[in-house]
């Protein structure tokens, strides 16, 4: 019996906006039950990589494969329905809808029929959302909105979870909540690709981390490399 292909594979992926190369020949893999970090300075191509996976950025070369099937040319809504969920940068929750309506939107991509207990898992992970489920999402704090954005992505019951800077602008205590939740999400067997600015914390937390600079892969780091700031800084500045 041959091993199943990794949940998500990027192979020599290149993304270009007009004349600007955002990502150049990036290859990486994310398997079930692991968190892979993608770090690097601003403009390194981290978000572009996530958007390319979601079919929302122009892929000019290479391939994105989910369970062995190519996703290049597949529309965003279909990528989502194939089981890849994105927690977008800036959270992108619908402020005028209630918390529960935001979660119901997450069901749009769910592949199985929705039963009555649709959000129990989300509420267990983030109890605050249950408490505020009838509130307008726009009235939540930034940290609560981030939890909602993650819960909304999970409502789709994806196989692959992409997160774009989930700790951006959050208080340290809330960052802990987010990382703790990501740990539990990993245990549930999802493949997680985590784009982050908090380099050291991400390297320590993820199963392995890739450092991206100028659209190219510079370095692959294991958790034990988290203390090695020299290598990290060198990769950032290269």
């Amino acid at each position, binding site marked *: 019996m041959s091993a199943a292909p990794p949940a998500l594979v990027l192979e020599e992926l290149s993304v270009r906006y007009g004349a600007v190369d955002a990502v150049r020949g990036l290859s990486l893999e994310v398997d079930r039950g692991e968190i892979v970090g993608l770090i690097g300075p601003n403009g390194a191509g981290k978000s572009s990589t996530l958007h390319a996976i979601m079919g929302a950025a122009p892929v000019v070369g290479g391939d994105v494969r989910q369970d062995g099937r190519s996703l290049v040319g597949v*529309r965003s*809504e279909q990528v989502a*329905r194939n089981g890849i*969920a*994105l927690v*977008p940068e800036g959270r992108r929750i619908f402020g005028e*809808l209630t918390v529960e309506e935001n979660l*119901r*939107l997450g069901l749009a991509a769910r592949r199985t029929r929705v039963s009555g207990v649709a959000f129990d898992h989300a509420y267990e992970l983030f109890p605050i959302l249950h408490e505020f489920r009838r509130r307008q999402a726009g009235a939540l704090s930034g940290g609560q909105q981030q939890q909602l954005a993650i819960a909304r992505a999970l409502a789709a019951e994806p196989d692959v979870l992409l997160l774009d800077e989930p700790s951006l602008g959050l208080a340290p205590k809330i960052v802990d909540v987010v990382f703790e939740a990501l740990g539990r999400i990993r245990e549930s067997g999802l493949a997680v690709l985590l784009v982050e600015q908090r380099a050291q914390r991400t390297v320590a937390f993820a199963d392995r981390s890739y450092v991206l600079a100028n659209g190219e892969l510079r370095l692959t780091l294991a958790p034990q490399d988290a203390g090695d700031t020299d290598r990290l800084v060198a990769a950032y500045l290269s």
Partner: protein
Amino acid sequence: MTLAFLNLSWPVFANGLEFGGIYALMAVGIGLVFGVLRLVNFAYGQLIMAGGFALAYGSQWNFPNWASILFCFGVVLGLSLVMDRLVFRPLRTHSPAVMLVATFAVAFVLQNIAQLSFGTFGKSAGALAFLNSPWDLGGVEVKKIAVIAVVTAAVCLVALQLLLTRTSLGLHMRAASMDFRTAQLLGVRANRVIAGAVIISAVFAAIAAVMLSVEQLQVTSTFGLSDTIFVLAGVVLGGLNRPIPATLGGFSIGFATGILGGALPSSQSQYLPSILFAAVIVVLLVRPNGLFTRGGGAVQRV
């Protein structure tokens, strides 16, 4: 100018309610499509015109009334879907200016086709004229069509509100009108949401066509045109992007049209549009986001 418009009577008031109801439906029809496509459909009036001609043919061919109305719905719906498929969808990713010009083009093409096919005098759609006769409501005589228009509009708008708040299609439509890109990233199907908005919008256009044909028995290539222009002003007045402000804006302008139209002596009825649009300009100078919106947001979306 006289002060005749202060001389309100029940029939004039009913006339105001009738146009308020019809225009509210049209306003929501335009607003729904704007919400998901960021497109002000200037060809909305031509959809109503097409519905009017369908009714005219229905009466010419001696269709029973229900069949004429059904035919009208079919024509408007069909034309809407064709418009969506051939014009709106291919241009959806272009700039709002391109889409706006495209809807103007569609409007002119349809209007000219109608004029060439049916001549300047158009066709008569008299089958529903009997609805101009009054009902006696507790000693007050009110035209049947006024009562029907108000009740129909109320039922339709409540049904729409339920659809938007209670169904997943409605939720998806609301989300798409707030942030289409994010909605798609969540797996909301763009085409389904757009089709939903276009279909509901067309149903409301067909209803408006039926009701306007009672008031205006002769259907010409400009049938529904001035009404649409008033409604567009009303939608801007109320706030374009949300059903409730759009409804209120449409209703206000319709109510004002009905009242002024009924109260102005016929020798002065040509002043009606000027008075209305002057009022719209004044309101927008005072409240640029629209009369019925809270806070900012409405303007930057246009």
